[in-house]
């Protein structure tokens, strides 16, 4: 599973051979990408928006580049669900994290703490990702042949493919939230009416 999740590190000073990258690889995350320019990171994420990402984001970027706060806000314009871990030398004594919290940063890790801390957070993020319905659909879709097949028709007669649904869920639009809620309710209903069984 882990090998399908990409770790995106956006940090201007991290060398490519940093121990963090080594230990993440050792944890089973094989697909790690390091971007030292914030815009490059954003562009990559948008290009492959349907992939599963965990983002490790620095705050400080050189003048002229988007800083961490702006990067997160930008990501959130297209995807409300990607887990983003803030990893920075800055701390609460010198930095206001309001904007990060409001944009749903998942964790904050001090740059100078043990890399075990960040490994733990990345693993947490991975589990969070597993619970994300959009990711689940994604995984399911990957196994299907016809990815554009129509899954549902709403009351106004609009057609939705699986891909459309994923997009709405990721944007957490009212439609997306409604679908999410319905999927959960349907799942629970199916489970408790014993129409389906949990795998052991």
């Amino acid at each position, binding site marked *: 599973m882990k090998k399908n999740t990409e770790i995106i590190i956006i940090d201007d000073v991290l060398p490519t051979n*940093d*121990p*963090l990258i*080594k230990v993440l690889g050792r944890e089973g995350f094989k697909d790690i990408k390091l971007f030292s320019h914030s815009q490059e990171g954003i562009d990559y994420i948008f290009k492959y928006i349907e992939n599963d990402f965990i983002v490790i984001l620095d705050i400080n970027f*050189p003048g002229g580049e988007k800083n961490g706060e702006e990067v997160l806000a930008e990501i959130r314009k297209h995807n409300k669900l990607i887990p983003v871990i803030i990893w920075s*030398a800055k701390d609460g004594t*010198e930095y206001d994290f309001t904007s990060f919290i409001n944009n749903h940063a998942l964790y904050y890790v001090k740059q*100078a703490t*043990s*890399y075990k801390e960040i490994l733990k957070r990345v693993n947490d993020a991975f589990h969070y990702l597993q619970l994300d319905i959009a990711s689940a659909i994604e995984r399911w879709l990957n196994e299907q042949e016809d990815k554009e097949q129509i899954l549902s028709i709403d009351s106004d007669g609009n057609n939705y493919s699986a891909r459309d649904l994923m997009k709405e869920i990721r944007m957490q639009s009212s439609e997306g939230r409604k679908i999410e809620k319905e999927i959960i309710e349907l799942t629970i209903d199916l489970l408790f009416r014993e129409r389906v069984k949990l795998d052991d």
Partner: protein
Amino acid sequence: MLDIKVVEIGYFLSRCGLDEPPKQLNVKNWHEAYLSFYEKLNNGKNKKEFKNSLKNIRDHFDSHLNNSRRGWFDDNGIPDKLPEQYIFVKNYLSSLSDDKLWDYLEHYSDNNFGTKKRKNLFWKFDISTFRLLGRELITDRITAVVELVKNSYDANSKNVYIKFFNIDEKSKAKIIICDDGFGMSASDIEKKWMTIGTNSKRENIITPKPFYRRVVGEKGVGRFAIDKLGSNCKIFTKRKNNSNLNILSIDWGSYSENDETDNFQKVSNHFKQKKLANKSSGLKIVITNVHDIWTYNDLNRLYKEMAKIVSPFNSLYPPFNIFISSNQYDDYKQNKLVKNEAIKYASESFSIDYSINKKTQEIISFKDNILSIEEKPLLNFGPVKFKLYYFDQYAKGNYKKNYKGGEQQIDGIKIYRDGILATPFAEHQEIIDNKRDILGLDKRRWSGFFEKISSRDVIGILEITKEFSPNIIDSTNRQDFIDNDEYRELKSFIISQVAELEKYLKFKKNENYKEVDRNLEDAKNKLEDFSDDIKKFKDVLSNADDVDITKEIKKLENTAKKANNALKQGLIKQQEEKLESERRESMFLSLMSLQTYALEITHIIKTSLGHIKRRAEFNFDFADDVSFKDDVSIYNKEIIHEIDKLNQAIEFMSTYTRSEKNWEPFNIKHSIYSVFDGYKPVLERENINTLIEIQDNIILNYNIYLFEDIIKNLINNSVKALELKENKLVKIAGYIEDNSLVIIFSDNGSGIQEKYKEKIYDIYYTTTAEDGGNGMGLYMVKTNLEAIKGHIELIQSELDNGATFKLTFPFKGDNK
């Protein structure tokens, strides 16, 4: 070893004297001839010893020269062998004619001048040394004129005229300085004026009655000043009871700069005398071949400096007036009397005195919301009079309006000794921020308080006397006093007095706020009255038949005027407040950027610690893991490298913590040269040529360590960029532009690729990691400069290839 001069005199006596002594000496007998040289050359001998020694030398030469005396011969009739020193003297003097020989030696005799009316005088010192010394002492032409005027003061002049003719065209220009002082006699000219550092002035520290002035040109440097102004000079001078007008012509231009070995005493100065049957006295210096043109602004500058020479405290009696005139500039067409006009515009002032009888010193103190004067025992630096004038924005504006370019004259506290400016020694600075702040008034502002007075808000006159403050001593460069306990205490006394004024100003400012409120309140009331009146007026109009309407209208007008005035007052006060607060804000900004800078450094260190920690942790966890063997060893190296970076950052930060102390003016040129000197071994090893062109006398008020660090960073980068190049060159130029110091730093190395141009200032950005580059350099330079609102930019390379950086250091801005 005999004094070579004595040998030369011996030669002269032998060659020019026959039975009688040489006629040039104008003496009756040989005894007098020997002794006429005694005063200058005795070298501790008594008269008898001196006479015998000189006679002995003469006799030695007699046997080798064709004169009537025989001299010393041995038994075989062969002249005694001359000692080597004698042969040497004989060789170089034999080529001179008798006249020339006498010209050369004349000034060693007491009987100078004699009856001659025309002759050449020689400088009594080495010309190149003289000029070098002159340039150190007289750094600019304003100072040069100040020096000459001080000489006039010392000569008991009542009036000095400084006249400029055709001063906008060098070839026709003439500068004349003339006074009505006691003038110089022929022997004064020769013995004092043309000899460096004669102590005649120091012996007589008080000038003759009825002036009793304290001599101010103590070190006798006034004459260097002429050289600064122009290369040709004629001096006319006359003493009161002497009918001779002495005329000396000097042509500095004929002393060639390059001819250093040979110029000693070779070039003569033309001297003549004329009879002039009147009782006048004085001195007139006419300078031609003027070095620089003087613009209207230059004359204004001169005027302002002159205005500072005599303390406005002591109205001297007999008076000392300075006049400036020029045939070209309207303001100066009449002789313009120099007056200190600044102080009448001041918005606040205080004045304190002392009493020698009571042994008390007045001090100012802010108590119960007023500035009051208290009496205290005398302080260790001696009694002082102190007058301080403070100018707020409004007073400054007023002053400026009435006195063109006047802002410059509000320039801090000066110390006068016995009525004459002592120090800083009439220092002229185009840029007021570069002035020496010897009392440390402005340094306090950096310590971060907005209510502090700066030297540009005050004119202060502190009077000391030589008699009662003997331990306040001018330093040799005359830009400060010698650092001792008394001077330190004097400084802290001045600052403490300024601080009392600051307290008062702060109190007044709060009062001002209240007054604004009151005024506005008042205006409101007046306007209410006004509307009442209008209402009444309306009522009156409705019964118009029996009332005097004009009377009511008048009343109305008055109310309106009052309301208007009250509003105006309120507005003026508000505007003043606004100006003041803008100034504070801009001060605050520069302090903020220092804090931002500190945060940046903290960030560097934290990031660096993170790097180290992860590597150390990894090595700890996987030291035994064969699959990570290579990584572990790489990380070990990186840890060491990272720690070096950290060290550098910390070292750098400590220069910043020292900065408060080192925030002082320094000479850019000296500093840059000293950095390059330090790099000499590296530059030589790498075969790098350097070209350094820094404008003279730029003084920057900045931290010298930080400045030098910036230069070092740039050199380091260039050394790396030049590694693979041939004909390596590093070029640095410095000059003033738009109130900033600009440094252009170039190399002809590998240059910076377009895509990296934005990146080069980032922390840890480096393209030279393999060569030990750690990417701290330009980041440091940039943040460092930003902290003082300067900047660094990469500009079009001025060499064929390579990189050119432009660095801008703003002089502490006029925060208006």
